[in-house]
């Protein structure tokens, strides 16, 4: 489960007291149900209050819980007939990214997700969910296959970042990420991306260029981890909590900034408390997005995605360019100085 989060301590203490009281009642046969009800009411209020007003840093803590559901936990709860497909056909098979074919509500889809371990042993096998180039190239291979067979693509983002290693650099980590951004933008099938845990930097974006981006309430997504931002900006990784605020990394921040399309609610206290219920909440959001994108022709699917990314950015000039939906009629407001 990992270390207890500071802000949850009062809740766990109260839960402990309630358990103690129940045990005492059972052992002694004394009826203290008034007292028990009172404590349970207090707990419910405390939970509501605590989880209803989580800070960005507290959400980062929840997103990193070792028992938080991963891609492979959600797949059997959301899809049927999943068949995992391995390998990039170029170098190897990266187990930090899983992918395959499946059915979603009976409809054939391609599923791809970053996969961290659920314990230390699995984390070592999965490289803590930090992919190498072959992982991104496997993902791209499966996406191109989906494009060929007209299957929508659903991706799950959950990574601390692309792996910073010697071999990864030698095999072209930059190129692998760049290639995915390039090719994903042009796919003619719907792409729906769900940030389920951590979404750090290019390593997350490399499977994240979608028609719709969904984000769980307690996940985060940014250009860098809070620790990395603090180290770079203030030369002090200890200021991660401040960076989590300043960098605007939570789902609600990203919704306000217009980067994501839907904020998926989480079960009280976080997805790990009830993965099945959480999968239902994701299912609802995904099905809604699939319905919306199903209305579009393949050409419109591509244009919608291109237009979505085209308009991201905050700058000041005489002419903020108007979003142009047709791909080849470029707006050239730039050459008149």
């Amino acid at each position, binding site marked *: 489960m990992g270390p207890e989060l500071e802000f949850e301590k009062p809740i766990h203490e109260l839960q402990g007291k309630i358990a103690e009281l129940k045990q005492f009642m059972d052992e002694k046969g004394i009826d203290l149900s008034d007292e028990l009800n009172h404590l349970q009411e207090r707990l419910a209020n405390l939970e509501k209050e605590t989880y209803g007003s989580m800070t960005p840093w507290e959400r980062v803590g929840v997103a990193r819980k070792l028992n938080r559901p991963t891609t492979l936990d959600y797949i059997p709860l959301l899809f049927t007939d999943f068949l995992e497909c391995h390998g990039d056909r170029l170098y190897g098979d990266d187990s930090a990214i899983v992918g395959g074919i499946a059915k979603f509500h009976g409809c054939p889809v391609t599923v791809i997700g970053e996969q961290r371990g659920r314990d230390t042993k699995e984390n070592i096998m999965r490289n803590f969910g930090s992919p190498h180039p072959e992982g991104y190239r496997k993902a791209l291979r499966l996406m191109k296959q989906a494009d060929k067979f007209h299957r929508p693509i659903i991706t799950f983002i959950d990574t601390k970042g692309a792996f910073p290693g010697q071999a990864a650099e030698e095999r072209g980590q930059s190129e692998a990420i*760049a290639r995915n951004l390039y090719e994903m*933008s042009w796919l003619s099938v719907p792409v729906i991306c769900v940030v389920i845990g951590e979404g750090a930097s290019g390593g997350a974006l490399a499977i994240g260029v979608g028609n719709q981006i969904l984000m769980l309430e307690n996940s985060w997504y940014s*250009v860098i981890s809070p620790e990395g931002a603090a180290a770079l900006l203030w030369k002090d990784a200890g200021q991660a909590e401040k960076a989590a605020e300043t960098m605007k990394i939570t789902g609600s921040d990203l919704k306000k*900034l217009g980067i994501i399309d839907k904020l998926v609610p989480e079960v009280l206290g976080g997805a790990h408390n009830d993965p099945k219920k959480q999968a239902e909440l994701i299912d609802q959001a995904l099905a809604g997005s699939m319905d919306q994108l199903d209305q579009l022709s393949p050409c419109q699917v591509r244009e919608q995605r291109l237009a979505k990314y*085209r308009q991201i950015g905050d700058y000041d000039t005489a002419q903020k360019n108007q979003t142009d939906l047709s791909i080849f009629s470029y707006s050239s407001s730039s050459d008149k100085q």
Partner: protein
Amino acid sequence: MKDFFTKKKKYATVPSAKARQDVPEGIVRKCPKCKKIMYVKELKKHLFVCQSCGYHYPIGAYERAEMLFDADSYVEFDKNMVSLNPLQFPNYMHKLESDRKKTKLNEAVWTGKGRIEDCECAVAIMDKGFRMGSMGSVVGEKITRLIEYAGKQGIPVIIFSASGGARMQEGVLSLMQMAKTSAALKAFSENGGLYISIMTHPTTGGVSASFASLGDYNLAEPGALIGFAGRRIIEQTIGAELPPDFQTAEFLLKHGQLDQVVPRAELRTVLGRILSIHTEGSAEAWDRN
């Protein structure tokens, strides 16, 4: 008396801000690699390449434009586009302002068009002097507009990268510029556009992981640092020391990531050759035989 002199020495070495300004900027420069001292005038004549060891000094966007284009053939686009502060990041606007004064640029990239070996091209030149060449909304937008312009005009795109990566102060918006520029390049490419990427020192992080790696031709300047993750982070992660040439242009060439490493003095010739092979007449030349 003895005490008096030693004491004075402590304070006598740093000239005042005013005095520093009075010294004409850069008459000589010392090569950081071989330590040879050269006159700036002489250096400039040799495109800021050390004549003793071949070290390529990093250069600003305006200097690069001046040495790249045919004489008096270029114009700048979107000169006045500036960053807003989407995350209300403390002190960000102040930092931009001071880099503006330092570089005479409004942002970390210069974009424009001009002729290279008599061929009209759309060109972006990043400047590491401005926020380490980092990419935020303005860099992403200017490059995207340039690519769209080139697509419309049917001219090649050439991008000189020099960047530490995505700009922290614009958070996720900076990250999304990677997708925005890459998507624009894909649309451009599908329409038959020619894109030449030239990686200069340094090309790392979100810039190397987006448009810089997507050229039809990927070139680099000798000795340029090119990579995704920082050397220190990698050494910490793997707990081992990396080879000295790790993430240099020559290292990337060896690992199949580049077409060529091109010395600055040969760049116009190499570009001219690529451009001539791609001009319309060349494609049909065979038919005439």
